[in-house]
């Protein structure tokens, strides 16, 4: 009996992951856990700010599961090398990624998420793309500054997304511009977006739209301030069969 107990105890200890478990059942993430692949649904919490020097599949966190919550818990996730940026948190193939309450710095694509994902109370600095998320996602209370877009939109959302209280500040680009900075699918509800201090050089480019919303969207309380653009045509807002108010 005693032997069986000890074997069970050994197996339990052996099965415990390196990453720890918080008292509330959430899985704790610390510096030694990165880069990280998450393969099971669950709730994860960052317990310290982390500067990461290695990536997995081109990202610091790869999520291969549905319904994963990552609470940055007031901390920062930082990629160490600003000259060879990787992606931050990438969900590949799943739905329902939630990221909130912290900051991400120096990433190519800061957050890539599947359908019905949420990004809430997140701050970003020195990124190429703030977020790409699938249909039905909610993006709220996001601030990003020092954005250097190349090729892909700064915010790229699928159909039926909610986006509110988002500020993008200090956007610069001189080459490989995306055709649009903020792009959403059909039936978007967007409100309180502020884009300020944009410097775009687009001499030979196809033109640029600051924001493009899909059919049947409602957009209100949008502010674009200090947009400096040289080169081809620029359009502030494109909206197809929607309502635009207080812009």
């Amino acid at each position: 009996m005693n032997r069986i107990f000890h074997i069970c105890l050994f197996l339990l200890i052996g099965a415990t992951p390196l990453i720890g478990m918080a008292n509330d059942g959430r899985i704790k993430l610390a510096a030694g856990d990165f880069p990280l692949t998450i393969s099971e649904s669950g709730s994860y919490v960052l317990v310290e700010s982390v500067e990461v020097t290695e990536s997995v599949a081109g990202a610091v966190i790869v999520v291969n599961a549905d319904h994963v919550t990552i609470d940055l818990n007031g901390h920062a996730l930082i990629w160490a090398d600003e000259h060879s940026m990787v992606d931050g948190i990438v969900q590949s193939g799943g739905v329902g990624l939630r990221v909130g309450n912290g900051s991400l710095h120096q990433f190519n694509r800061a957050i890539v998420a599947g359908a019905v994902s949420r990004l809430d109370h997140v701050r970003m600095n020195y990124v190429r793309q703030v977020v790409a998320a699938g249909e039905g996602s909610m993006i709220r209370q996001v601030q990003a500054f020092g954005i250097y877009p190349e090729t892909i939109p700064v915010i790229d959302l699928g159909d039926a997304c909610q986006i509110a209280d988002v500020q993008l500040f200090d956007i610069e680009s001189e080459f490989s511009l995306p055709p649009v900075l903020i792009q959403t699918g059909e039936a978007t509800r967007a409100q309180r977006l502020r884009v300020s201090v944009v410097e775009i050089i687009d001499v030979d480019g196809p033109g640029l739209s600051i924001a493009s919303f899909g059919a049947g969207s409602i957009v209100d309380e949008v502010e674009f301030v200090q947009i400096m653009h040289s080169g081809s045509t620029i359009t502030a807002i494109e909206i197809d069969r929607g309502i635009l108010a207080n812009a």
Partner: protein
Amino acid sequence: MISGCVVYDSSASLGDSYGFQSGFDSTVALSSVIRIGALFELQGFSLPFGSSLTDGIAFRVSGGQATDGIHAGGSTMIRGTVARRISSGNNTAAGVRSSDDSVSRYVAVTDVQAPTVGQPAWGIALENRGQVIHSLVQDAGIGIRLMNDGAIMSSATLSNSEGGARMLDRNRVADNLARDNTPYGFLLAGQRNDIVDNAAVANLTGFFAQAGDTSFLARNTAIDNVVSNFAVVATTRIGQPIANPGANFTVTNSWANFSITP
């Protein structure tokens, strides 16, 4: 209070179905119903008497029988809300359907389909004393339907296949646009409506008043409607329609309507 909730990718094969169903006097905000289906009746949001829905999304709501993106009881308020791709396989469909004394403000309804003949696909359908303000309906059957004593203000109906806006008695309709609707932009199917400062552009008929109508029409503009700009019966109280006034025109009749053809 329901806030920040999503119903996603769900279907029901038995009974009537709801994405969200709240109790009386509820507040629903920042919530979405996306890709839901049912074999029978389906309501994306079901809001009883006295409830409000703010910043909602109903998207791809498809039922076998009567299907509403948002179905609201009396004295309800819907604001800042999107309904798109709402369809019924075998009955009526509506982006928003509300009972008496309800308000739809900043509501965008697009692409509502009810394929059965004789089963309307309404964009926004309100009962008595309903108000539609700063809203848009496109690609539905009947864009906006009012019964009695309601209002449509500063709204647009575009490319609806069974009419832009339709009303019965004593409604006020002001500062709206109806464009590319068939068979009419504005249909006055009752009496004593107050129709002012609207524009009807490129519909089959711009303003259409049915037999016995006694509505008041002033300062409306009808442009390039295919069959007729104004088709009103003799009992309609319509300010003098000024036809093709030309450049730099002067008109001293402050009640005049304008009829412009190519």
